[in-house]
């Protein structure tokens, strides 16, 4: 469970004025009930997901994480270019207390990097790095997966593989998605909300959130 209790995040601009990206947000992501937060561009998606990940502290209120929360999908920082694929797997397995052999085996099969997996990451291209990153995210068996805007990564074949994996493991995965892409929310979430001008409006039904988002997104555009 990820619980947001009256969460707010503000930044001070160069003139010294306080700008609230999110304010007075209370809500929860319960296991099996994915939440999608729809928001137009530059309205605080990354800040919201970073706060959920524990990377940023809220300016007010609190966030309680019960259960294992992933790093944001697609975050390049989880893998180091100075290490080999194998060393990266070792580090993340140790970090999250997972069995190295199981994780290595999963990534070997899923990322399909062949002999490159044991080689240094400097020999990888961007697409191969993305495949390794997403495979590691799945291999960790997180209870909650955080998505910052998109679930892209890898070539078309790999994306199909990911979509198939997500479909097959739907019952075990809970997402917290902050995005400007309505199709992600309608595909993976059971509840949704709209973040606009610092205020989050939550809806029990995704279609209501989509309707609200379409309205504010049109205004924003």
């Amino acid at each position, binding site marked *: 469970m990820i619980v947001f*209790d009256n969460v707010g995040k503000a930044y001070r601009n160069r003139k010294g004025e306080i700008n609230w990206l999110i304010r007075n947000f209370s809500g929860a992501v319960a296991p099996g009930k994915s939440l999608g937060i729809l928001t137009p561009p530059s309205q605080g998606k990354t800040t919201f997901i970073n706060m959920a990940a*524990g990377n940023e*502290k809220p300016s007010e209120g609190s966030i309680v994480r019960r259960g294992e929360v992933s790093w*944001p999908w697609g975050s390049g920082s989880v893998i180091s270019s100075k*290490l080999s694929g194998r060393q990266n797997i070792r580090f993340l397995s*140790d970090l999250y207390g997972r069995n190295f052999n199981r994780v290595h085996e999963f990534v070997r099969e899923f990322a399909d990097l062949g002999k490159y997996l044991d080689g240094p990451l400097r020999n990888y291209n961007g697409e191969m790095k993305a495949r390794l990153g997403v495979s590691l995210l799945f291999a960790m068996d997180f209870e909650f997966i955080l998505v910052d805007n998109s679930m892209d990564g890898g070539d078309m074949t790999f994306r199909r593989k990911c979509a198939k994996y997500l479909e097959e493991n739907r019952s075990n995965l809970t997402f917290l998605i902050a995005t400007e892409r309505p199709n992600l929310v309608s595909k993976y979430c059971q509840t949704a909300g709209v973040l606009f001008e610092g205020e989050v409006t939550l809806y029990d039904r995704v279609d209501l959130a989509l309707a609200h988002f379409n309205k504010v997104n049109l205004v924003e555009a």
Partner: protein
Amino acid sequence: MSASRSGSAPVRVNILHGAANNGRIIVALIFREAALRFGTTPFSYVWTLVEPSAFIGIYLFFRLVVKDANPMFGDSSILFLLTGIIACRAIRATIAKGMKGIVTNLPLFEFGAIRPMDAVVARTTLEFTIWLLILTTFLVVVRFITGEAVVVNFQRLVIAMLMIYFFCIAMSMFNATVGALWALWRSLWRLLALPLYLASGIFFVPVQLPPDILTFVWWNPFLHCVEAIRENSYLDYTSVYSPTYLGSFSVSFMLIALVVEHVYRKEILRSRYDDDEEEL
């Protein structure tokens, strides 16, 4: 909101669970640091130990053979210099590496699981372990060359080493946080390095100093680190080592570092130490 409000047993469970989690993260970071430091070849592991050992070896050779230095205390010049130089160099090198724990691992703090201080502790621990291995190697070699006992109280030496390790962590944390925010402290730290090194009892026996000077140099924490090792390497050594002072100093600096990190984490993560070079 959290389970900790429901009673003392869950609080204990939470603390233990949190400590176990933190321990696991630090161990993972230590192995990552080792992989980054040593690379993938066994030669790199050996070189990490050989390089500083060679420096110490060459220095000792020049001091003892070329300059024919007399021991300031005891019969063995090599043991006197070794307990001083290695201890001091180890501490300085450990702090220098540890204080860069945040700036060299910035991407790691972007996915939530790792706190900046975890990286500082991991890096300091790895460097301290390397130097501990080097010190052990030299002490064993000296033991065989001189045929005399080089450790008179093993248990107390272990406690002394733990105190020194704690001091290294505290100073690394302090430099990594305060130093990241204020360039003035980084300059001051560099300026102080030589006087602190020279006043740490490497080349003299502190208790033989005139009382007025001793009162002054006694406040140097490096002196206490060197004295902590010497006290347990010589049977009749009169040391000025104060575990209370070294411990209090370390706790104070660590607390300041933790508070600064808590309040200014964002600013610390933005700092790039642009004006610095690796200090050893």
